[in-house]
């Protein structure tokens, strides 16, 4: 068993272990769950330590036959891109446990169920990034919806079951389209090289262009729903408004990255020609997402809805970077996934605290928080700055890489994308102004500032945001080989400088 499999299993075993804890002892359950997530973090750290930065190809590879009739294997392995996303998962999980210590208390079901679902979710998120068998990926891709569904529907706020349902239906619909493509590519492999779902082998298939386009669309729409890309986004705001902060963090911070990750790992690698065909369309969608998400964010009254729409805008950037097909765009997009994970995490966690304290998620109900709860206000402010990609904060590096990478190939798209940074300033600052500045809104005078647990929870996120703004290099070193490989697979190379040397 490779370290990777061990890492996948750790939270899962933890979930089982939770059943050994008496259901009534909520505190112990929380402690055990948190402890387990820290253990997972340690294991993932060990894996990152053993990861060979300069080696190309997959590492920690493991492969066993699973469903031999269809050539389906339990095949896992990670490259740099998968590694950073797994690390994102394992780092965020303990943080959200700590940050949302009490959010499971008033759920539909027990506290234990909440943590079991969370750990199962963590496990499946690790596995989904590790899977190198397309079928395995698909299965986890679909199966992980269930815990999220239950987490939103069982522990959320407001119209939670509706939101959860919408989320599930959208995702499953996308998943079914992907299933159709999955079957298509399997049949093609059966005819050419013998039925397999092995990613590397499938990438060698010769597919006629009409078929390839359809297969590509099946995968792409599934990922576009997940990411979410305009116009497949309408499930997200509801889900974000209803979910608990911890769920939102894992949903938007990590789970949705499966969409963009899938675009790189599957759409581009498996269907390079179709990728070329659809690139213009996708770039237009990405631009629309960037601007649309930003405008909608400006128009939001609900703080979680705002964060959701900012994410739609940010996913637009990620998709733009991916399909720009330059090493800066791809690496930038991958880095963006990580940064957006932490940045949204910070936003959702702090917004969650604000909402919990004020018992309302309407932005207008806040106001003047900087005077009342300075530390919380600062945290929100820094999170906001990371959302608008202020230089010095990690998201700047990725956003700039995406834009510069796009510019070298599609200048007009990059220009449109760049105007997004003005809108980003608007939606962040308007919110900051309404919620943190101005006179203290009536009813907010007695709000409590962050306690020690909350400070400990948010500190690493902010530290990472700032640290990675200045030292993104280790992560870029992990990511760069993956980007190179993706570009090779797609048959692209960086445009050369037009003038000079």
């Amino acid at each position, binding site marked *: 068993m490779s370290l990777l499999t061990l890492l996948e299993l750790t939270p899962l075993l933890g979930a089982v272990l939770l059943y050994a804890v008496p259901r009534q002892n909520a505190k112990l359950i929380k402690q055990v769950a948190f402890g387990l997530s820290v253990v997972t973090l340690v294991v993932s750290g060990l894996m990152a330590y053993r990861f060979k930065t300069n080696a190309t190809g997959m590492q920690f590879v493991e492969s066993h036959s699973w469903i031999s009739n269809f050539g389906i294997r339990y095949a896992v392995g990670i490259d740099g891109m998968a590694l950073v996303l797994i690390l994102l998962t394992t780092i965020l999980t303990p943080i959200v446990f700590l940050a949302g210590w009490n959010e499971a208390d008033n759920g539909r079901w027990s506290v234990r169920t909440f943590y079991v679902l969370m750990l199962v979710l963590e496990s499946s998120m690790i596995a989904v990034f590790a899977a190198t068998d397309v079928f395995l990926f698909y299965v986890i891709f679909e199966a992980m919806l269930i815990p999220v569904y239950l987490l939103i529907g069982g522990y959320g706020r407001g119209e939670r079951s509706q939101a959860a349902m919408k989320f599930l239906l959208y995702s499953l619909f996308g998943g079914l389209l992907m299933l159709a493509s999955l079957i298509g590519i399997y049949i093609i492999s059966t005819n050419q090289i013998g039925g397999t779902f092995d990613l590397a082998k499938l990438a060698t298939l010769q597919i006629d262009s009409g078929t390839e386009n359809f297969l590509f669309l099946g995968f792409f729409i599934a990922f576009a729903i997940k990411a979410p890309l305009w116009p497949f986004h309408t499930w997200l705001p509801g889900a974000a408004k209803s979910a608990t902060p911890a769920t939102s963090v894992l949903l938007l911070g990590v789970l949705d990255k499966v969409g963009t990750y899938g675009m790189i790992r599957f759409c581009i690698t498996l269907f390079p020609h179709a990728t070329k065909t659809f690139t213009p369309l996708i770039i237009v969608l990405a631009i629309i997402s960037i601007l649309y998400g930003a405008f909608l964010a400006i128009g939001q009254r609900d703080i979680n809805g705002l964060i959701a729409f900012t994410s739609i805008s940010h996913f637009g950037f990620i998709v733009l970077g991916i399909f720009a097909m330059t090493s800066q765009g791809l690496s930038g997009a991958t880095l963006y996934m990580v940064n957006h994970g932490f940045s949204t995490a910070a936003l959702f966690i702090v917004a969650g605290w604000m909402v919990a304290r004020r018992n309302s998620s309407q932005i207008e109900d806040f106001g003047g928080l900087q005077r009342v709860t300075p530390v919380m206000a600062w945290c929100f402010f820094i999170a906001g700055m990371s959302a608008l990609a202020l230089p*010095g904060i990690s998201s700047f590096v990725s956003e*700039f890489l995406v834009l510069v990478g796009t510019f070298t190939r599609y200048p007009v798209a990059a220009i449109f994308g760049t*105007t997004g940074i003005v809108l980003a300033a608007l939606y962040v600052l308007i919110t900051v*102004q309404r919620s943190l*500045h101005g*006179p*203290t809104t009536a009813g907010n005078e007695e709000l409590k500032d962050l306690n020690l647990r909350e400070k400990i929870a948010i500190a690493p996120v902010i530290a990472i945001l700032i640290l990675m703004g*200045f030292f993104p290099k280790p992560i870029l070193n992990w990511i760069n080989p993956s980007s190179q490989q993706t570009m090779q697979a797609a048959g692209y190379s960086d445009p050369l*400088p037009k*003038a000079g040397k």
Partner: protein
Amino acid sequence: MTTRSDLVFLIALPLFSSALLLLLGKIANKWGHLFATVISASTFGIGLYEFFAMRSRSGDARAATQHLFEWISVGTFKVDASLLLDQLSICFVLLITGVGTLIHIYSIAYMSHDLDRRRFFAYLNLFVAAMLLLVLGDSYLNLYVGWEGVGLASYLLIGFWNQKPAYAVAAKKAFVANRVGDVGLSLAIMIAFTQFGSVTFAGVKSGAASASPAALTAIGAMLLLAAAGKSAQFPLQSWLGDAMAGPTPVSALIHAATMVTAGVYLITRSNFIFDASATARLLVVIVGAITLLFGAIVGTAKDDIKKALAASTMSQIGYMILATGLGPVGYAFAIMHLLTHGFFKASMFLGAGSVMHGMNDEVNMRRYGALGRVMPITAITFGLGYLAIIGVPPFAGFYSKDKIIETAFNAGGSKGILLGGAALLGAAITAFYMTRVFVLTFMGSKRWDDQAHPHESPSLMWIPMVLLSVGSVASGFLLSKGSALVHWLAPVVNASDSEGGVELMKPIVVSALALGVVVLGVMTAIIKYGRSVPVEAPEGSLLTRFARRDLGQDDLNHRLLVLPGQAITRTLVSTDYGFIDGIVRAVGWTLGYISTSLKKIQNGYVRSYALLMTLGAIALLATIWLVTL
């Protein structure tokens, strides 16, 4: 090139101090301001040390670099965190740390009653760090970090009293307007990378030689947009007036002496781009000329002393921008004016702060008057700054502004006459409105009511003012003596000794002309405001009212950007629910409707079920029949 290892401390020290003061919180309340001031002073010390070290080197060795670490490296996009201290940046380092330190000292007293003084000093240090990074970065991207960093500091400081909604709005406005400029800077960097494969100053410089004119013009235009945002130039000027919401020391340091001049630095730093593109230069001078007149006109109508000074700042930076657009020799004059302006404008802002300090934060000049008697030191230091800005010899402004007017006239042909004329007209209006400010504030009759007890400010405040006014007096002469600054900067901006262009008029004629219009402006102002001034502003002429409304800049922005933006937002919000989500809901609804209709078949009558089966069988027969035929 020389390699230095201590440049990083210029940035690291204030950054560390800022972070420390913010993180420690209340613990640092007692000593935070002192700590910040000491740090600021020590950066000035390092700056001086570096300056002298640089002077002791010669030729190419004067420029110094420090490589810190590899920041971003993806494909060919490689950006190092590296610092570059050359003749241009050292000017800024000294200005920033020097004026910065004085303003730190001033603020100790000015902010003494504010509960959040520690936070204020943390922000100031943050600003100093970011501004130093801006001028020390060796690449456009490093510069960008500082560029946005100062924007952040500016935002925080403008909104320092953000419990007042108007101040919070002002802060936001400043940030957003700056962001529009940042789009320009981002795009400039992207074009540069696409063209040259590098974003360092050196890389772009070497690439610019062989680049296409169109690309260079595009980069130039984008850099100009960036400069316009940061330096409050037309058409992004509207935020500066509102930015006066911040504490006055901030206005002095950030919104007069240093940050707003970053645009001038950017253009000067990018001289290799502008030198290669006449179109870009033309754009620059147009923006500069418009802004210098725009600011001057607005300045004549403002009754708020800080806003009048802000308008003046805008106008003076217009001069600098104009100068940078005038070719190699203009850069040096722009920087010279920038430095002298740093002294006299800071001095005047601090003076204004001192006045406000004594007048219970009253800013309306119509409620001042005759303050010269109760605040002699303030009046004198302000007066020296005043004389400097209007360009009376031998004060600093005379040297720097005259050079710009002269160079503008020399730009050649009708362009030269237009630009020179604009600059000259600007000088006249400047003389008028600055005289107005001075007269309204310090002379004439007392118009303040009895509740105000104007008094001279404490020494911690007036000492910096005095020091700055010394600068306002002497800096012009010192910098221009033997073309000291021009020579000093020559390696950076490629300026030669001989002033380029065709000499339209002898320098002495230009000086005389300038002095003439200044006297004209001063006289007009004294005649208009020397005697009695109504406490309530008269309605004024159409032009006055228009100038009070900042020549309609906000109205224009409101109509052109805000309203359409809000309309788009509203439309999209409703579209999102009504249309995009609506399609999804419509699909669901349709399916539900079909479902209900379908179940009508299920009516419970066995005979109709049999009928359905029979019809089904017939349909099958018919189909296969048709297919087979």
